[in-house]
């Protein structure tokens, strides 16, 4: 019996994947993909988070430097809650990726792809429309390119010289919160077109919730902004009459349940996350896939 368990554990380890999650900010990967990531790490997959911007502006009453330090620590906690092994921060200032060279950003992400050699890549979907934080769009564009260029020897040749070889990532998840009204419209079934994919997250929801609650600075700021907007227009949300850890945690849970319900709509799940997915068959012409 003991040897059978050992064999099963060995088999699981042999099948385990390495996942690289690219996120613009500390919140997006949790809200859009946290449940799926937690489900994968729970089955033995190894995950690393690459965080591009430093969240120095997403706070209610902290100076940029304090906000950056605190959100970094909270991002580490959130990552741990999802079973992510390590967080690598690129340290760009939040909201300023529109002024960063796309090639520079691409090459820095490609470096980490070549270094880590992931089997699976999670990136913000740059084609998700009406996303408010365009850092997510810029990061998605750079990461999508990086997945491609990381596989090419003639990109960044010095990396190969120091032993960081090109790498092809076989699976790609594009994630986004469900803002785009056309996110579920069928795109072409042709080659190179990632397909919509919905993943049930009921079993992992508690971990996702723990991760989202760990982002105290960002979540408190969001709650304060809602309250301020309502106050300025003669309205109130009873839950936020007092903004404290308890009310913020409750609001986070409501938001996560709302997101999960939206994504599960029309699918046989109570809670879900939605992606566009390019798997190993991604580059096989549609007519040959069957």
């Amino acid at each position, binding site marked *: 019996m003991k040897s059978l368990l050992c064999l099963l554990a060995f088999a699981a380890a042999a099948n385990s994947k390495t996942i690289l999650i690219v996120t613009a900010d500390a919140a997006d990967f949790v*809200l859009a993909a946290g449940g799926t990531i937690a489900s994968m790490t729970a089955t033995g997959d190894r995950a690393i988070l690459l965080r591009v911007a430093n969240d*120095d*502006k*997403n*706070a*209610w*009453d*902290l*100076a*940029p430097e304090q*906000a950056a330090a605190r959100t970094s620590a909270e991002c580490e906690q959130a990552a741990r809650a999802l079973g992510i092994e390590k967080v690598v921060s690129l340290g760009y200032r939040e*909201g*300023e990726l*529109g*002024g960063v060279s796309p090639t520079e950003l691409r090459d820095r992400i490609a470096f980490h792809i070549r270094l880590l050699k992931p089997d699976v890549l999670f990136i913000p979907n740059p084609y998700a*429309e*009406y996303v*408010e*934080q*365009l850092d997510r769009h810029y990061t998605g564009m750079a990461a999508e390119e990086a997945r491609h260029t990381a596989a090419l020897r003639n990109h960044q040749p010095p990396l190969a010289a120091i032993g960081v070889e090109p790498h092809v990532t076989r699976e790609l998840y594009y994630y986004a*919160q*469900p*803002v785009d*009204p*056309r996110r579920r419209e069928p795109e072409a079934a042709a080659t190179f077109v990632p397909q919509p994919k919905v993943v049930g997250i009921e079993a992992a929801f508690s971990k996702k919730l723990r991760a989202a609650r760990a982002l105290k600075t960002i979540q408190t700021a*969001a709650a304060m*902004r*809602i309250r301020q*907007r*309502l*106050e300025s*227009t*003669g*309205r*109130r*949300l*009873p*839950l936020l009459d007092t903004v404290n850890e308890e009310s913020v945690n409750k*609001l986070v849970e*409501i*938001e*996560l*349940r*709302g*997101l*999960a319900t*939206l994504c599960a709509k029309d699918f046989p799940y109570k809670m879900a996350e939605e992606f566009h997915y390019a798997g190993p068959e991604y580059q096989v012409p549609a007519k040959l896939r069957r």
Partner: protein
Amino acid sequence: MIGLILLAAAAIAAAAPLPKAAIPEGKRFLVIQPHHDDHTTDYGMGGLIAKLVDAGYDGWFIRASNDEKDGAWGYPHNDMINQRESEAAIAILGMKGLYSLGWRNDYMDPTPLLELRAQIILLIRKHRPDVVLGHDPWGHYDRNPDHRKVARACAEAVWMAGLRNVHPEHIELGLEPWRVPHQFLKARVDYGRGHEANVAVELTQAHVARKMKAYSAHRNVYAHPSMARSVRQQLAARGLKAPELDRKTDEEAAVAIEEWHMDWISRKRGTENGLRYAEIFYYLGEFDHLPGLTGYLRDNVVKR
């Protein structure tokens, strides 16, 4: 057969009228556009501007480019003429003022996004608009670099203006953070799958008349006599003529044709949406950026 049914269903869905937009409660609006005439063109927003003003709003127009290439003259002349005509157009619509940012017309691809955005953030914090009328950053196939750049800068500015750590130097000036709660976005709807409206704004004939008058104020770029000559020639080549244009000079005919087109497009958008006159927009409301909370907030927010 299934394909036919799906096609028919798609046609019915495409024909479904858009929800009618209400004018949000508020006092101030900003029109943030790349060019002097974008707010009044056929796909523009002159009707909504007139409607907001009639509802008691004060409005200002932020014109990002200097429009130096738009018109029949050299760069400096076009810049000045288009500025004057913009002032005339916004006065017709009832707006309070105009800011020309002066970025070089049709050369805005290399304009630093963060600099342009900072200018817009400053003006948002100064005026604290309840509504912004902008260009849709998600429109496809827009070949105009100024449209793309301004749309993106505006999309970022409307929410980043609400963050204290964004340009804290503004706070030193006594300006407070301000997040814009309502946006009405426009782009060409005939450019492929890109911009797709989600609301229709009902207009009266008086709104359309003001929109047409404001549109006509841009005489430097519209109502060219050559356009009327071309229309007459094309009609003649087909053995046709338009009696309404017979006694008009080419310039008068050009104005009449433009006004007819403006009235036609407002009627067309109205008819498509079960209204007499309309403009269509992509509307983003105050909490649409929080998809997981919109339902909860709708059901639980109460008056103080």
